[in-house]
């Protein structure tokens, strides 16, 4: 049992700091020109070879500051109290679809559809205009984890992944598979740190004796049975947990538990991402890639996050219940969350998606995804059921024949 004093102390601390704290992660720049720090040019894009932003005029290359260090998001998790939220996780306003940017170069007003893009060229002076402020439509995260793997490396991995899965793949998939159609996509995640106290209660059993009993069945038959005696224990574990960088999907479309429209579990499976290396947002990182807008708020995902905290608590309790050789049945669980910190981060994925052309609209979208940081590759390849059925039948028949030879042999011997 956890000491009452410790519990009371934690509860008191949590009450004292129960209000939400917002950390401003917006860049100081105003919307419009996003200039190269050396020459002032606006034609800037992320180069995968340099792994940095590169100015097209002066070839100056640089990266934004590490977001954790720049905004103080790396402070000790043990000291977190209440909810600390980076400003990029603010609630989304769905009605924000267009914005008017005033070009600081020539004064023209350019309308930009912020649901689709965060940059536009001024139609008069050709300067690139960017959304630099954190507009509340979910399109601007606190931090971006830039791509590391090149497109060619991703194509190679996707090709190899699908190449190993050709024999039983659907015929149309094989015909239509073009790995060059891979897209670079930024997917929004909430990255959560948590300081909590977890309590688990249940029942465990320890074997005290194992014995065999020979029992007579019918006239001449005997059956040997093994029995186990066990001591039953009430088990309780209480501990503090500091969770660092738990990631949770924050776009409904990529909800890992919903695989009805698309194989979202594939995107979930290519994790982890080294989110601690994410850099402060700069719209130029998103240029030439597509990005999915965050459409879930903190309160939409907090139940999921609590479930994940509990799952982590259960996993961490496992090494402490080794003595219960018959297992433990957890019956009650709970966490007292003392503090959390929320940051919205765009993570990079090379994504190949395939939907069966013959099935038309609404058919399942199969993804083959490559984590563009560490190269983890996972995918879903549509199968040809008749082919699998044929092979399984053949293997089953062979097994049946072998089973018959062995079985009848045994029968005749016995």
């Amino acid at each position, binding site marked *: 049992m956890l000491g009452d004093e410790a519990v009371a102390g934690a509860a008191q601390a949590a009450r004292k700091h129960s209000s939400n704290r917002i950390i401003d992660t917006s860049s100081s720049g105003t919307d419009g020109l996003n200039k190269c720090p050396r020459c002032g040019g606006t034609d800037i894009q992320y180069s995968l070879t340099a792994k940095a932003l590169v100015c097209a005029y002066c070839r100056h290359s640089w990266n934004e500051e590490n977001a954790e260090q720049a905004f103080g998001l790396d402070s000790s998790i043990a000291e977190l109290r209440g909810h600390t939220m980076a400003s990029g996780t603010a609630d989304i306003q769905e009605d924000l679809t267009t914005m008017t940017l005033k070009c600081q170069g020539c004064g023209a007003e350019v309308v930009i559809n912020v649901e689709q893009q965060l940059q536009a060229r001024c139609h008069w002076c050709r300067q690139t205009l960017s959304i630099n402020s954190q507009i509340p439509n979910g399109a601007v995260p606190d931090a971006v984890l830039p791509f590391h793997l090149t497109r060619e490396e991703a194509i190679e991995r996707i090709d190899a992944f699908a190449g190993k899965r050709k024999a039983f793949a659907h015929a149309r998939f094989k015909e239509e598979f073009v790995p060059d159609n891979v897209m670079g996509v930024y997917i929004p995640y909430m990255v959560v740190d948590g300081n909590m*106290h977890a309590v688990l209660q249940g029942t465990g059993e320890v074997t005290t004796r194992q014995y065999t009993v020979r029992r007579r069945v019918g006239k001449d038959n005997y059956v040997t049975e093994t029995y186990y005696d066990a001591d039953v224990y009430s088990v309780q574990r209480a501990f503090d*947990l*500091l969770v660092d960088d738990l990631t949770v999907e924050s776009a409904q479309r990529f909800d890992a538990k919903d695989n009805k429209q698309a194989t979202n579990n594939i995107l979930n499976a290519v994790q982890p991402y080294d989110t601690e290396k994410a850099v402060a947002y700069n719209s130029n990182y998103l240029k030439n890639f597509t990005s999915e807008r965050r459409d879930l708020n903190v309160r939409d995902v907090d139940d999921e996050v609590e479930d994940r905290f509990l799952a*982590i608590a259960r996993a961490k309790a496992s090494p402490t219940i080794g003595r219960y050789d018959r297992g433990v049945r*957890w019956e009650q*669980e709970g*966490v007292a969350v003392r503090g959390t910190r929320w940051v919205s981060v765009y993570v990079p994925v090379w994504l190949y998606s395939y939907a069966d052309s013959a099935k038309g609209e609404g058919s399942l979208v199969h993804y083959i995804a490559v984590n563009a940081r560490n190269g983890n590759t996972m995918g879903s390849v*549509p199968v040809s059921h008749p082919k699998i059925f044929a092979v*399984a039948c053949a293997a089953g028949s062979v097994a049946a024949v072998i089973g018959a030879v062995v079985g009848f042999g045994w*029968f005749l011997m016995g």
Partner: protein
Amino acid sequence: MLPLLAELAADPATAMLLADSDSGAIGIAFPFLAGPGVFIAVYVGIYRYYRNTDKRHHFEKETEVSVGNLKQGDRRVGTNNRQKSRSMSGRNSTEHLTRVRRIKVQ
């Protein structure tokens, strides 16, 4: 193949053959168990290898976590003797994703 398996399972003769473990008669059931068993294993195995429907990020193991201040409260409450199974019923200590009754923790 599957209806055949169901039919086989429903057949009282199969049950008799399986129950009669002391004789070599169980051998007769071998082909009827091995065939459908291998069929299902091959079908599911290939399907999973292609579709990867079971793959996910094991966040509960891969997330960086520090644990401290562990308090254990274990107390013997009784015995459970003459059990046929090697493991207790309802064990869920390895099923980290299944949630149980939520309690309020102060």
